[in-house]
């Protein structure tokens, strides 16, 4: 098989407006930090999507695995009182 010459994988997070959280939008290949940042800019912000960018080497992201689904997430299923649905939200409040 041909040797992979495309560099490592980086995950890309784009912030659409100042103050908003950075959202994961995909990944790029790159050999160094500057290349990763530029590639992310070129691939993911060419239609006016962004005001800020994060790139992170994919191997630095620690992920839960599919087997964790039960023990990690199901215990939250019957804790309905954790949702803030019992409060009245005053009119005019956004971003809740």
């Amino acid at each position, binding site marked *: 098989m041909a040797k992979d010459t*495309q560099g490592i994988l980086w995950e890309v997070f784009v912030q659409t407006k100042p103050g908003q959280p950075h959202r994961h939008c995909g990944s790029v*290949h790159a050999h160094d930090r500057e290349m990763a940042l530029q590639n992310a800019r070129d691939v993911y912000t*060419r239609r006016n999507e962004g005001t800020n960018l994060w790139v992170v080497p994919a191997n630095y992201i620690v992920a839960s695995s599919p087997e964790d689904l039960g023990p990690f997430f199901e215990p939250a299923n019957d804790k309905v009182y954790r949702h803030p649905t019992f409060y009245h939200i005053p009119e005019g409040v956004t971003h809740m």
Partner: protein
Amino acid sequence: MDKNAALFNYILRLADTNLILGHRLSEWCGHAPFLEEDIAMANIALDLIGQSNSLLQYAAKTEGKGRTEDDLAYLRNEREYFNSLLSEQPNGDFAFSIVRQFLSDAFDLHFYEVLKNSKDEMLAALAVKGHKEVIYHFRHTSAWMQRLGDGTDESHERIQKALNELWCFTGDLFEMTDSDKYLVKEGIAVDTNLIQDKWLRSIDEVLEKSKLSRPADSWQQKGSRQGIHTEHLGFLLAEMQHLHRTHPQATW
């Protein structure tokens, strides 16, 4: 000196260099070393063609003979094109295209910086847009100069060779005609003598970081201001203009 004719020639020169360089870069579309760089090169090509489109519209308006930007782009021959000799050089390998772009970006960086103060409002406005774009282009190509220059033996050798081969076309970038000098006096055009040192400094800074050496000053190929080109432009125009000349009134 007919101010309008001088201005028309001046705008055309800027438009042509952007168009030809943009077209050259667009030839990489689908062929760049990897997907992300393919998109990066196409993005830069589109910036340049966009600049050219605005400039050609302005040129057509300045000329006032009813020609459109399409007429100017698709119905002029080699000797009526005034793009820089550097812009028309064929892509070669990736290193060659990067050096061509880098030398050109460094020029535009300082050129637009001055053109932003032009007394011609339209040129000043287009320079503001162009300057913003070229700051990124220069950052992109500078990073590649470093990566390839300070990379493997092979990448170093290839990019140094490209630099040596292209250096003889850089003097042409700074050529000024009598009509340009007239526009400089009018506060409209850029006096390229005043940006040459800055251009050289920007290049030297990057070359030093890239472990590359600047070719010695030697004979320079000039002539684009008189419409005299290297043999490559004719082939480029044949390809670029073919569709329009075959179907003259075709629209999307």
